[in-house]
């Protein structure tokens, strides 16, 4: 959507000082082309690497010197661990313990990608549907495989709701199947659209600051400060929702319903 061939046209907003879509542009930092595949190192990949490094370093360094009275860093890591562990325990139950490392990694990864996007001149990796859809598809396929491994062909019973009149069943099964297959789409579009809409809105308001000049620009600036706070909340909330929905899908696969 924000690929480089669409950034040239402004669609009538040529006089607007800030192009709101420019921030989503993917730039090649290092051209790599192997066997016809373009696997260049982009700013998207750079920010993913930064997120992974920050998460790994903070978690490894802060728990290296474990103490009963935790240091500041250690308590941050322990808090985030407890937060995700609680989420998995409440939504998946005791069987979810095996999948805790995946959920924790997923939550921290999405959270840090969202938060890195809030830094000025940062790049929001999760504002691209390619990234979020790949994550959602990975979760969808993984959960479906877990369901079939756990229940065998009995997993198809998941699509048959219990306690409904028999003549309603053909309709309800179709609805259940459709709602199951739209899961990766809704999961990925929710994260991508939230991030994209939020950052576009911030950029549009920053354009108002410049347009209204030195005297009138203070009002949109104040609104922008408030919106930035809201966006940080949304960044956290979307990472949380992404992780909790993964827990719920996992619970469906493990326990049916």
């Amino acid at each position, binding site marked *: *959507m924000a690929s480089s061939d669409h950034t040239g046209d402004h*669609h009538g907003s040529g006089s607007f000082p800030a192009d709101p879509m420019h921030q989503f542009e993917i730039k090649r930092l290092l051209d790599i082309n192997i066997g016809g595949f373009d696997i260049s190192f982009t700013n998207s990949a750079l920010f993913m690497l930064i997120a992974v490094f920050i998460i790994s370093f903070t978690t490894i360094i802060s728990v290296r010197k474990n103490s009963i009275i935790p240091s500041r860093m250690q308590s941050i890591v322990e808090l985030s661990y407890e937060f995700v562990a609680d989420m998995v325990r409440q939504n998946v139950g005791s069987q979810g313990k095996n999948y805790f490392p995946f959920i924790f990694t997923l939550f921290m990864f999405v959270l840090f990608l969202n938060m890195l996007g809030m830094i000025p001149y940062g790049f929001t990796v999760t504002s691209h549907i390619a990234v979020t859809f790949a994550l959602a598809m990975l979760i969808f396929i993984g959960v479906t495989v877990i369901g079939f491994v756990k229940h065998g062909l009995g997993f198809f019973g998941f699509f048959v709701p219990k306690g409904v009149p028999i003549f309603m069943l053909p309709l309800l099964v179709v609805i259940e199947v459709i709602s199951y297959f739209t899961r990766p789409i809704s999961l990925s579009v*929710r994260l991508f*659209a939230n991030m994209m809409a939020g950052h576009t809105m911030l950029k549009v308001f920053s354009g108002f600051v410049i347009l209204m000049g030195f005297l009138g620009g203070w009002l949109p600036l104040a609104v922008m400060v408030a919106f930035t706070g809201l966006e940080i909340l949304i960044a956290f*909330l979307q990472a949380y929702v992404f992780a*909790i*929905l993964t827990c719920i899908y996992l619970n469906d696969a493990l326990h049916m319903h």
Partner: protein
Amino acid sequence: MEPEAAKLIGAGIACIALAGAGIGIGTIFGNYLAGALRNPSAAQSQFPNLLLGFALAEATGLFGLVVALILLFVL
């Protein structure tokens, strides 16, 4: 009508979907607040459900926004 104009009008119409998301989010938070004030001790345990309902309600509206963005920037 020029195709460009039709595209812009279509994008505007697609954004009406966000009104539904607004109604849904308002209903969820309003009902949560009403329930939480009646029974404050049960409020904390239902907070994850609140966020989940908020996210699910918001997603349907955002589909409309995505249609608008596709109309503006992809087609």
